């Protein structure tokens, strides 16, 4: 029988939201039984010490001014742990890009990060937080010693090839360019007025649902683009426009092509969707 992979889960500068997301994974007990947990900041685990691991999970961002642990500052500590690990999972947008709190491990927003030289052994799982299923998928694949296809930013293709727009229940409104005029309405697309970043955000939020039932846009909240480098942007509930034209457009098309098709769709008017589908007064 093979020995269980050793997992070291370190908390850098963050909110522990990624850990809490993971705690919502329905089969967490079974998954944790497949590994030997060397350390976790919130789960019962052995004493914290610098040591070798098969899988190092880094949650949170880097900051040199952070309080020292074991006489190391945070960057030195991460450096030691990364060198002693076989694989590194960068958990959450803070860890991958910097997010709310500081610098990312692999990237510093758009630029290369302090540990870019270790890219080969890193798997990036951005998200604020990442979905528990995404975390479990990567851990399971590593435990099973299976190959995970990664994109140029080392994100698993199975999760981040899609946009959070894919699978959104409001797609029919997007097709016909019918906006949700108010926050919290069940009908209408959130892209044009309400700030939704779904069409250009790499994630599977509308394919692998949260709590197995929902996603932000399904519930009436715009996608905040929490898996992206520049997260968090300002004015998350308002679409940034230049002369009425969305500043960011769906991935993979030119602005010219998008404006043409958007103008045509709007001109054709979908009478069914232009009025409320469920109108209690009519």
């Amino acid at each position: 029988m093979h020995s269980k992979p050793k997992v070291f889960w370190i908390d850098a500068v963050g909110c522990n939201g990624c850990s809490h997301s993971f705690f919502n994974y329905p089969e967490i007990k079974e998954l944790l039984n497949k590994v030997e947990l060397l350390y976790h900041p919130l789960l019962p685990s052995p004493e914290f010490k610098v040591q070798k691991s098969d899988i190092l999970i880094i949650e949170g961002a880097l900051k040199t001014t952070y309080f020292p642990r074991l006489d190391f500052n945070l960057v030195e500590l991460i450096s030691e742990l990364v060198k002693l690990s076989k694989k590194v999972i960068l958990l959450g947008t803070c860890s991958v890009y910097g997010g709310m709190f500081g610098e990312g491990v692999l990237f510093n927003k758009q630029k290369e990060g302090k540990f870019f030289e270790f890219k080969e052994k890193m798997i990036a799982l951005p998200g604020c937080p990442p979905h528990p299923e995404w975390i479990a998928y990567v851990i399971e694949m590593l435990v099973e010693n299976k190959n995970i296809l990664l994109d140029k930013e080392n994100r698993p293709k199975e999760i981040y090839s899609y946009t959070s727009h894919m699978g959104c229940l409001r797609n029919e409104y997007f097709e016909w360019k019918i906006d949700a005029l108010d926050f919290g309405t069940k009908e209408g697309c959130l892209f044009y007025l309400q700030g939704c970043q779904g069409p250009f955000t790499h994630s599977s939020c509308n394919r692998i649902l949260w709590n197995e039932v929902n996603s932000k846009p399904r519930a009436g909240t715009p996608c905040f683009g929490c898996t992206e480098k520049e997260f968090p942007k300002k004015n998350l509930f308002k679409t940034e426009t230049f002369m009425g034209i969305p500043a960011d457009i769906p991935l993979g098309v030119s602005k010219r092509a998008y404006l043409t098709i958007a103008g045509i769709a709007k001109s054709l008017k979908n009478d069914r969707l232009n009025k409320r589908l469920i109108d209690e007064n009519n």
Partner: protein
Amino acid sequence: MSKEVKKLEIMKTALNLFAQNGFYTTTIADIAKEMEMSVGNMYNYFHSKESLAKELLIYTSKIFGDEIKKINDMNVSTEEKIKEIVKLYFNMAKEEPELVDYFMRVYLSNKEIFSNGCEGMLCVSAFVTEIMIFFEEGVKKKELKNQDFFAAFGLFMGYIGGLAFLFREGILGKNLDEYIEPVSENIYNALKA
């Protein structure tokens, strides 16, 4: 002569006749006569006068759109681009007045002809898309004020369209070229950030 080339010739002939005499006064027979074709043969190319009018709208919109795209691709300031667009429009009003006349006298004055199949942006998207890109890039470069698209579009196109109309009516006291500078300046001052 290929069918496509012939079709284009019919369109150009129709464009002139529609622009000169109006849509309703011009008949398929008039166009056929000008083309030295039989009326029956004309229907091999266009099944109705309305369908010809719609194709012409797409055609004129594409000509304007292609020219504005060239301006959009120029590496110059937005102020300079405004001047180029004004110059382009006024030159067309002088050199190819039928294009401008068709847009203003047929399309904008007889919307009922275009109500089925050319609604909204459907037949003019080539032109409107390029204008959108022009405005969007101007705002992005912080050279134009970020405002409602149609408020800016109306100010720009309404203004130069109005001048071209006055020119075609013979009301302008001066040559249209002499208005390029002051009109461009006014538009820039009205739209700048």
